[in-house]
């Protein structure tokens, strides 16, 4: 800790800001919950929550919106981390909602859009008033305009034209019954900050984030690893290649990138020289249109 010259590094500054946000919500919100997917951003967010309340336990549950299309390594990781921290895990299940007939998946197999009603239903059932999400402003231009405290109406909708002004670090988390606040403690972190923090703090992450030899098929320039949800179609060649994942979304739609980075430091080195944004490189669901994220957020997506 650098105390001699009273200066903080960028990661210490970001860490302090995120911890402040987490504590503010715990102090003011009736029933917060932290969205935890087992992805790297939510892993960092959960680690910051641990630090914010140590030596006490994290004073709110974590929730996973489970699309049923998970990489098994990620589910294992989720369960192990939750057990270590002694926090309550709530699973909001998309397959259950499909079975109950409340949502239907899209023809291409994407369950991205239908996560939203399942999430909103869980929020209502549990009476959550604040939801921590791991989104960052550098991810997308719709995110660039998001508040740290993002107000949502009773339908979970985001209205970009009617956001609460956010001054200094004086956050307004007030809600009426049925409304909620989405809170983004990692708003000011960049992808490289997340990786730098994982390296500095030696935070455990699912092995999918590190390069390994995997069987993949090439679909329009995107490399998909063969798994329970992705089987080669007729005419597709299965190749053995060294790849890693930059994001961990649904196992049927998340592509891997060619990589030889077997350690976190090597991942950082690759990212530092990579010239493709995270979502553009690996998420089939964001390629639909330029305003895809803006549209989903208005409907209540995270």
């Amino acid at each position: 800790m650098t105390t001699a010259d009273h200066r903080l590094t960028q990661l210490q500054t970001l860490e302090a800001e995120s911890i402040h946000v987490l504590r503010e919500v715990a102090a003011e919100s009736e029933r917060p919950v932290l969205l935890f997917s087992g992805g790297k951003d939510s892993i960092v967010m959960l680690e910051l929550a641990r630090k914010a309340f140590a030596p006490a336990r994290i004073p709110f549950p974590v929730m996973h919106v489970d699309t049923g299309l998970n990489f098994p390594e990620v589910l294992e990781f989720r369960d192990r981390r939750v057990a270590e921290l002694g926090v309550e895990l709530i699973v909001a299940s998309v397959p259950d909602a499909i079975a109950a007939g409340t949502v239907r998946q899209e023809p291409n197999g994407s369950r991205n859009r239908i996560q939203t009603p399942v999430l909103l239903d869980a929020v209502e059932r549990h009476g959550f008033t604040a939801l921590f999400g791991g989104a960052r402003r550098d991810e997308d231009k719709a995110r660039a305009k998001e508040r740290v405290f993002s107000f949502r109406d009773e339908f979970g909708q985001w209205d970009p034209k009617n956001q609460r002004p956010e001054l200094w670090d004086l956050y307004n988390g007030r809600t009426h019954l049925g409304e909620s606040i989405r809170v983004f403690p990692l708003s000011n972190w960049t992808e490289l900050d997340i990786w730098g923090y994982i390296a500095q703090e030696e935070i455990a992450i699912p092995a999918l984030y590190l390069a390994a030899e995997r069987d993949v098929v090439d679909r329009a320039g995107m490399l998909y690893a063969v798994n329970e949800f992705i089987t080669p179609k007729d005419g597709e060649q299965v190749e053995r290649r060294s790849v890693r994942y930059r994001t961990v979304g649904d196992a049927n739609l998340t592509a891997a990138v060619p990589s030889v980075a077997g350690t976190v430091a090597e991942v950082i080195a690759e990212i530092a020289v990579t010239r493709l944004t995270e979502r553009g490189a690996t998420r089939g669901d964001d390629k639909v249109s330029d305003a895809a994220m803006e549209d989903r957020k208005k409907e209540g997506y995270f």
Partner: protein
Amino acid sequence: MSALAQAAAELATARKDILRIATAGSVDDGKSTLIGRLLYDSKAVFEDQYAAIERASRGDHVDLSLLTDGLRAEREQGITIDVAYRYFSTPRRTFILADTPGHVQYTRNMVTGASTADLAIVLVDARKGMLEQSRRHAFLASLLRVPHLVVAVNKMDLVDWSEEVYEGIREEFAAFATKLEVPDLTVVPISALQGDNVVTRSANTPWYEGTSLLHHLEHVHVASDRNLVDTRFPVQYVIRPQTDEFRDYRGYAGRVGSGVLRPGDEVQVLPSGLTTTIAAIDGPDGPLDAAFAPMSVTVRLTDDLDVSRGDMICRPHNAPTVTQDLDAMVCWMADTPLVPRMRLAVKHTTRSVRAVVKDLQYRLDVNTLHRDTTADGLGLNDIGRVTLRTTQPLFVDDYHRNRVTGRFILIDEATNATVGAGMLTPS
């Protein structure tokens, strides 16, 4: 690990500090082009983003202003709705840039962007000189006490790199800045479109003795902007593990507002006024020997006092003012006007109280700085001097002395909307 990996890992965890910037200006001033240029030249633009704007560009050049192109709702209406945050870094510093629109809702957005800024950049079109809106932007930056102001005189290529034009604008701004008590003013002649004096010094301005804009952003000295004298620690959250291992642990969590706290320091807790000493300070990675702004820490006290959220830890002979009467400059951000006798909620540090508007002393014309004492209300985007009476005491300092204990927000309790921002002034 390869040498490259090692170097990159060091880069990501390097001891860089963060500079927070607010930019003001309209599309016509070339603000989007300037930001696009900073992002592009500092390599914060990725291939797929660049490919997207290359496709969308009309004309011969890739239009860098499209990098900051916003939401579809904005494109449809041809306006910028809201503050957007951009991120870029150089080997020396990381930058968080609040990009505020110049036209619509300018006061609300500029105040929001400037509230967290270390430095404000005001764009001026060299052909037009200092306009009403340039004055307004500089005034708002000074009202929010942004410590460093940069005026970027843009489109110098269109005035043939005239030293005379630059000097005229510089002198006019310097005179205005003196009135505003702007502590640090820098005026840079640039061409955002062609990149002159943005990242590197331009050969077109041999008469200009200063540095490029980016060089200034990388080197401007901000460490002394912080208040390390007046100890202010608003208690945010009380940590009580109530486990066998930590049975007697009682920690006061919060973010240091100003000053420096050390174990062994004699401290006073407000509102009780009781004094005790700091037993220990726990940081994110364990015990600390000092805590300062903007660190989030947990303070343990020697004596078992009744301390809760909203209380303030300070030094016995350097305490903030304890008062229910607030005199403040208020920026109003709601359609329904602020009028005397209005009731509002106030959030100040970690303390939330109610207040009544006792008096509107004057409304300020942000263009002329004229004080209109006959005004009977503050409309959307108006600024005025307001007296409030709160239901409970607050622990305050003047905003010009302490940006943390001198600020508050106003909330409409019926709608829960944030309707105003306040900066305390000496009464």
